[in-house]
């Protein structure tokens, strides 16, 4: 370590103001802080700052909590692939096959995203932020395993530039960049993002590859997998979203460390469940009769609730607002699933929609608080 420190100290003057490589300071800064805890914590700007813990630590915890879902997803790609071929090789072969699919996605996502991030940091003179480590990790987890790499690169570029950098970088974005990337792919290349062809890597054509939600959309309820299969994640789907168990392990880590807010997480589940119950009562068609609990483990609901809705930047900032925000996400997600024949999955759009209205919820929570306190003041003055 000492050698590294000395080396970095020696190079540092070149990158400071007036140095030879002044323009590249952001790159140096990010490399240095990767190895050593900096003396200064995150610049005190941005809506996401709540605590003395600095951004690097926060974001690393999130990345770590994504690992169970990532590893399981990698294995599941192999499992689904060989299942569709009718083979059952050993654990490592499945993992290896999955890794061949996932690692290029990760490389493209990190490469394109960090490249743009560093470019913006250089030009605009802010630091390279770790926020993107999380987004770049999330993006491969919410796409089908076979998504073409150039499409992924395009989506990441769109999300980083128009979702984040135009607002001034980490902590100032309006919508979740990872979800924006997915929405971009979803609307720009629907053939590669939905249907029953894309969820299993290189499958035989005769094998049905639809996700449980995709099946439900076309009214096919016969091969809905068992609760155990859906909870453990032995179903086709986006890479990270299939295993509710692994997501919950990650979610637990986020809750214990206090990175994610439990209010948002639980109200999303509660909202989805209640909406599901309401539809069960209504029961006008088969789709409405899907048991409420099943909505919570199908598709991307759990993943969205745990990792996407809790994003501290784009969620509501007020405590009371979080209840409304989470509850509405859950309700709208199930509503879109049941009512909208165009999309089998509603979680992504529900979160994006509430991201957009989060500032409005905050505004009214704050206004009502101001009014309450003014009233209290008046009462106090009078008495």
């Amino acid at each position, binding site marked *: 370590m000492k050698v590294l420190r000395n080396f970095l100290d020696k190079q540092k003057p070149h990158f400071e103001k007036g140095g030879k490589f002044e323009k590249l300071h952001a790159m140096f800064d990010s490399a240095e802080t990767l190895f050593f805890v900096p003396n200064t914590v995150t610049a005190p*700007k941005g*809506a996401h700052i709540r605590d003395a813990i600095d951004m690097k630590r926060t974001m690393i915890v999130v990345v770590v909590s994504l690992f169970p879902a990532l590893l399981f997803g990698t294995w599941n790609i192999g499992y689904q692939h060989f299942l569709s071929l009718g083979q059952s090789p050993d654990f490592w072969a499945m993992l290896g096959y999955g890794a061949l699919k996932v690692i290029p996605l990760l490389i493209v996502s990190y490469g394109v995203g960090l490249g743009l991030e560093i470019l913006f940091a250089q030009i*605009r003179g*802010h630091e390279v932020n770790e926020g993107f480590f999380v987004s770049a990790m999330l993006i491969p987890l919410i796409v089908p395993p076979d998504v073409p790499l150039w499409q992924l690169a395009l989506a990441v570029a769109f999300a980083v530039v*128009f*979702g984040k950098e*135009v*607002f*001034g*970088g980490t902590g*100032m974005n*309006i*919508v979740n960049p990872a979800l*924006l990337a997915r*929405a*971009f792919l979803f*609307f720009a290349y629907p053939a590669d993002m939905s249907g029953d062809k894309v969820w299993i890597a290189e499958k035989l054509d005769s094998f049905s590859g639809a996700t449980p939600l995709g099946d439900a959309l076309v009214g096919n309820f016969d091969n809905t997998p068992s609760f155990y299969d859906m909870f453990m994640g032995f179903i086709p789907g986006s890479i990270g979203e299939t295993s509710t168990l692994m997501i919950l392990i990650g979610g637990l880590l986020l809750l214990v460390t206090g990175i994610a807010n439990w209010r948002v997480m639980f109200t999303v589940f509660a909202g989805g469940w209640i909406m599901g119950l309401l539809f069960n009562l209504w029961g006008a068609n088969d789709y409405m009769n899907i048991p409420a609990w099943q909505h919570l483990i199908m598709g991307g609901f759990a993943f969205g609730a745990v990792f996407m809705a809790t994003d501290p930047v784009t969620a509501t900032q007020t405590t009371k607002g979080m209840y409304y925000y989470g509850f509405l996400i859950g309700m*709208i997600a199930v509503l*879109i699933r049941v*009512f*909208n*024949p*165009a*999309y089998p999955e*509603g979680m992504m*759009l*529900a979160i*994006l*929609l509430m*991201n*957009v*209205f989060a*500032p*409005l919820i*905050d*505004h009214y929570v704050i206004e009502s608080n101001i009014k309450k306190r003014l009233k209290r003041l008046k009462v106090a003055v009078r008495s």
Partner: protein
Amino acid sequence: MQEIFNIFIKSIFIDNMVFAYFLGMCSYLAVSKTVNTSVGLGFAVVFVLGITVPVDYLLNEYVLKEGAMVWLGPEFADVDLSFLSFILFIAIIASMVQLVEMIVEKFSPALYASLGIFLPLIAVNCAILGGSLFMQERDYQSVAEATSFGLGSGVGWFLAIVGIAAIREKIRYSNVPPALRGLGITFIITGLMGIAFMSFLGIKL
């Protein structure tokens, strides 16, 4: 009854004036700096749309449409005045806006001052004329349907402008690139909101 409710919900979320048709953008972009002003303008638009659409509906049904004047006598059966619809619709809209302006000036001078020129400019807000023309084109069956369409479109526009105003209040502290500050970033936000509103696209009611 069901149909009327469906039209209302549909015109708020699915056929949103701003995010599905990009109508009424000028005041949407210009007045959305603070939530309070945009709430005022939003209410004005809801009011104007809620009145002009049914009034224009009656006008269209009993005066303008081909054969609409048949109630005057059989000799009017082939009179077609639909070429007059633009000018008459605009006249109705302008008089309603005049009314709103007088009401706002009387009861909320502060709002009147902050809306400024944009209050009378509601008269040329494309969302309002768009509402009347959509009504004509979609051929609603009764005054009640036209009213619910007008109110729904107004509420949808209200939701859009209030939502973007809250976002613009939030990003006031963001480090937006200088070239994009103001209108540029607002256009980008509008696009992002449009993506979010696509969640309702395709719902059939």
